[in-house]
């Protein structure tokens, strides 16, 4: 079943064309002018338009041009119906983008042959377009999957959608943002690597990273870097999260708790005592592409990031240290009494000691 729109102000001509096409099993709608033709195409897009060149309100050429200039209807085949001896109209029709011509008086064999051929062509074009779109979607999906193994799924989504628009992900200028930075590492792991075999180290690191990255994603953090056994996760970037501090706290808790069974397994195998240490700090940072055109890192830098790194270094295995601002913003996210003040601590690279709070999930 297919739909043909007949645009002709002569009711006898329209009735004739409709009858011929209906005899071939096509569904036909008839309208008498260009205005109604455009309305009908918008309402119920046909598979083909049979368009008379002489219409009361606009020329068939103008309607044809209008159809061909919109991306939605450009693919719709248009057959211009002209007088037999009117070669000037044919030239204008070609200029207007018509797909074919039909002469009046209309010979039924010619009408059917032209309509059928064009419809087949149109259908083939549409199938090709659908296949092209499907493969594009598949390609994007594969890209998204591959990306998501390295960066957070939401970030991957944004990079891919940016790629679709102008080809330059994070094309904008670096921006100042408020972040909650979370640093995690495996306390004592450096010592452990000295005694363990290479394969063991890689396997242990992978188990550890599986736990922490999954926890990060569960709380919609963005992983900005992994270096050695330490991991930098940002909250409130690149997407705003009003509850960023609470999220960071819950992510940290989740990491330590989820890591417990892994740790138990390691200890059972005679491994050295270790555990995750976490530092969280909040404040202003710069979000942007840092590096060279050959090696780019989309990351956050700034005081909050440095403070989080220092706090992580001071944390013991299984401990989470947070700055005053994070404690203030997120204390409600954990049961009362779970967070203890650790007093004012002097952090390396900081002139003033800062108030630090500790939590052991």
């Amino acid at each position, binding site marked *: 079943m297919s739909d043909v729109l007949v645009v002709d102000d*002569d009711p006898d001509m329209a*009735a004739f064309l409709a009858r011929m096409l209906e005899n071939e099993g096509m569904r036909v709608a008839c309208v008498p002018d260009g205005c109604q033709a455009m309305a009908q195409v918008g309402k119920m897009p046909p598979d083909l338009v049979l368009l008379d060149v*002489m219409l009361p309100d606009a020329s068939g050429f103008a309607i044809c041009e209008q159809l061909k200039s919109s991306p939605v209807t450009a693919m719709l085949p248009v057959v211009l119906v002209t007088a037999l001896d009117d070669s000037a109209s044919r030239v204008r029709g070609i200029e207007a983008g018509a797909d074919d011509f039909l002469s009046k008086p209309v010979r039924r064999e010619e009408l059917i042959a032209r309509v059928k051929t064009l419809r087949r062509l149109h259908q083939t074009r549409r199938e090709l377009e659908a296949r092209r779109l499907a493969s594009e979607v598949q390609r994007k999906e594969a890209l998204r999957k591959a990306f998501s193994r390295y960066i957070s799924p939401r970030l991957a989504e944004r990079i891919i959608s940016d790629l679709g628009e102008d080809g330059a992900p994070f094309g904008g200028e670096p921006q100042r943002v408020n972040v909650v930075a979370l640093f995690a590492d495996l306390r004592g792991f450096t010592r452990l690597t000295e005694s363990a075999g290479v394969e063991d180290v890689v396997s242990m690191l992978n188990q550890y990273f599986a736990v922490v990255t999954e926890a990060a994603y569960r709380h919609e953090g963005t992983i900005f870097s992994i270096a050695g056994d330490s991991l930098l996760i940002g909250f409130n970037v690149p997407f705003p999260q009003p509850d960023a501090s609470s999220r960071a706290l819950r992510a940290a808790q989740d990491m330590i708790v989820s890591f417990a069974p892994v740790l138990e397994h390691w200890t059972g195998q005679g491994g050295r005592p270790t555990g995750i240490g976490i530092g969280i700090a909040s404040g202003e940072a710069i979000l942007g592409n840092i590096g060279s055109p050959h090696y780019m890192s989309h990351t956050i830098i700034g005081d909050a990031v440095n403070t989080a790194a220092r706090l992580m270094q001071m944390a013991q295995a299984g401990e989470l240290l947070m700055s005053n601002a994070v404690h203030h913003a997120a204390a409600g996210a954990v049961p009362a009494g779970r967070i203890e003040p650790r007093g004012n601590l002097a952090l390396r690279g900081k002139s003033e000691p800062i108030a630090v709070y500790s939590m052991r999930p």
Partner: protein
Amino acid sequence: MNNNAYQVTVARDLEDLIPVFLRNRKKELETLRAALAAADFEQLRQLGHRMKGVGNSYGFERVSVLGKRVEDGARSGDRASLEDCIAQYEDYLARVQVAYE
């Protein structure tokens, strides 16, 4: 004009459309007359153009032939020819016989 000229054979699948088609031709005849009386040559040209297209599509060759002459007469402003065409059209429409096959 011999009588064969008034015999028209139309495809069976158009049969139910023919009464409307012929009614519209008679209306067209009146419009042609009015247009000629008003010396509206542009309207006459358009009417002729339409007759030319629709006539033969239905199998009424004579309608197309007269349509072409009306169109040409309107272009050149040939009143006498237009009057003759309209008279012939009237005669034709009064006497045309339609057979279906």
